[in-house]
């Protein structure tokens, strides 16, 4: 028990440190949202100064940080200048879109990688293993940017896969089945791209882990007892190979928010990544900070979850 408690505390501490770090960077950043306004001769200096003090931009750093913390506690998370509303709700809404995208992609990636990985580990040197190895190597050489652009081309050429947005413009007027189809068509290409991006890592980890377990003495003993292959793989080998896979799973969860940055930008998917890019271009700092921290929270939480699962499932760790 104390182990988990310690982990939670260190995660919180980490989060605190990260938020402080990002906030310090905000303060040192040259340029801000109102710079554009300054260029406009019609807006007086006094107006800008008034706006700045209204939003607390001229306060010293520690005060700003405390205000922001309070704001986070209230659920507002600071203020977005571009959207002229509290930052947190915007972040949350965009995050949901991202989770839809990455969640689908992660699910499919795992669904493909587990059977494929197990199967290719079970038959080393034969077709499945070679196929797996070849797939991994090929996919590793293709950056997700390139793949995304190619798929974008496909989308534009075929016209069947709409780009930009989660749903079409007439979404609200569609029947439920059409709604589903509409969303699926928007979702298909970006999540395909992400899935392909996740596959090499998942596949190679699963394969490596299974291969290592399959070479161990207790599997040889089980095989000598005549246990059929499928039972051997699923009931004997897989649980033993699970440790690194659980860590991997936690990692997969952790990157749910952050892995789709490029994909969202290219396909116009209105998620957290695209919000980040927009906010950077608009110099909307609170939005940037909140987005970065939110993604970090996920990553830390994912790792924490993995550690917890490992602790719960592996008696060897409890014994330490």
């Amino acid at each position, binding site marked *: 028990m104390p182990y988990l408690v310690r982990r939670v505390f260190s995660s919180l501490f980490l989060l605190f440190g990260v938020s402080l770090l990002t906030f310090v960077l*905000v303060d040192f950043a040259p340029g801000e949202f109102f710079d554009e306004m300054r260029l406009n001769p019609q807006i007086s200096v006094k107006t800008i100064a008034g706006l700045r003090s209204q939003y607390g931009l001229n306060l010293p750093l520690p005060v700003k940080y405390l205000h922001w913390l309070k704001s986070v506690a209230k659920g507002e998370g600071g203020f977005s200048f571009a959207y002229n509303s509290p930052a947190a709700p915007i972040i949350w809404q965009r995050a949901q879109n991202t989770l839809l995208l990455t969640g689908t992609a992660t699910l499919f990636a795992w669904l493909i990688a587990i059977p494929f990985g197990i199967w290719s580990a079970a038959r080393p040197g034969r077709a499945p293993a070679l196929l797996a190895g070849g797939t991994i190597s090929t996919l590793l050489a293709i*950056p997700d940017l390139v793949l995304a652009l190619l798929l974008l081309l496909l989308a534009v050429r075929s016209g069947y896969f709409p780009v930009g947005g989660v749903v079409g413009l007439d979404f609200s007027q569609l029947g439920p089945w059409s709604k589903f189809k509409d969303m699926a068509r928007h979702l298909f290409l970006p999540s395909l791209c992400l899935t392909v991006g996740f596959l090499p890592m998942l596949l190679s980890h699963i394969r490596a882990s299974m291969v290592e377990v399959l070479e161990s003495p207790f599997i040889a003993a089980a095989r000598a007892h005549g246990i059929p292959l499928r039972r051997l793989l699923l009931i004997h080998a897989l649980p033993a190979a699970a440790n690194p896979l659980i860590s991997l799973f936690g990692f997969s969860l952790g990157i749910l928010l*952050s892995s789709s940055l490029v994909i969202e930008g290219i396909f116009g998917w209105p998620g957290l990544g695209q919000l980040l890019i927009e906010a950077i271009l608009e110099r909307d700092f609170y939005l940037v900070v909140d987005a970065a921290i939110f993604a970090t929270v996920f990553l830390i939480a994912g790792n924490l979850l993995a550690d917890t699962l490992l602790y719960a499932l592996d008696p060897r760790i409890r014994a330490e």
Partner: protein
Amino acid sequence: MRIPTKPRLAIAALVVSHGLVLLAGFFAPYDPASQDRELPFAPPTRIHFIDGQKKLHFRPFVYQLRADLENDGGYYEDQSRTHPLYLFSSGHLFGTDPSAKVFLIGSDAYGRDQFSRLLYGGRISLFAGLLATAVSLSLGMILGGLAGFYGRWLDDLVMRTTEMFMALPWLYLLFAVRAFLPLHIAPNGIFLLLITVMGVIGWARPARLIRGVVLSAKERDYVLAARGFGASDIYLLRRHVLPQALSVAFAQAAVLVPTYVLAEVVLSFFGLGVSEPTPSWGNLLASLRQYNVLESYWWMFVPALALIPVFLAYYSLFSYYGYYSVGGTAATEFAAARMGPRTIS
């Protein structure tokens, strides 16, 4: 696992490609900024040996392209004049006389030669990757080495700090830090800035790996034996610990370079990196964000395809050098690191 063979092809490919971009002034026929307003989005120039009269020329030649007024946006070849290709003409590897253009991979919206821009842009992208890796590795080796060698509180401090850096999603952090810098920076400045930022953010994983190597090397009996002969710390680091650390560092480099190259490309693609008119593979691809370009002008894709052999080459390098220093399959490590310079467990 098979023991990988020395990746001669990969090394050769990398040497050649880096040489090409370094000597872009020679290999590229045109200046990357020179425009030809009459030839926007011209397709790759065809090189002919046989002309309209079925006559064979020894020297390959090209036709000048003219706007096809019926076919909007298209071009036709003006076969009234042949323009021979010259090798080693006026300081460039190849070229033709000034009244025609040889666009090996077409031209962009301003009629700039994409091939030249590819070469000049490669300088930025490829070397941004290399230099950022150098920064990350140097930081990692120094901090990780000190932490592993001197241990105790220094080790604890360094390890906690790396945990903090590794808890952050790398690309997000890169973008966020980029947010806090001025939007428009001169090309030299942005290049150095990107290298510094990427290098500093990515120090954590190399540091952990190096620290592990140093820690285990320090405990070896031969280090103890050398102490018995009166060896100083510096001697031990230099002769016994460093060589081990170097091979790990080298394998790390093979993973980091492509990651950083891609990061620069992505940043420039979204307008946050190197900006016009300086070419980089990222901003060369940025025009593809417009659908009409994406659909009609396939040659604008080439910079994206150029990334693939670079990645392949570095992957081969990593498979070879990483085999001896990093456990597990190379693919696993490479794929994990592609998600950013951090570990899973």
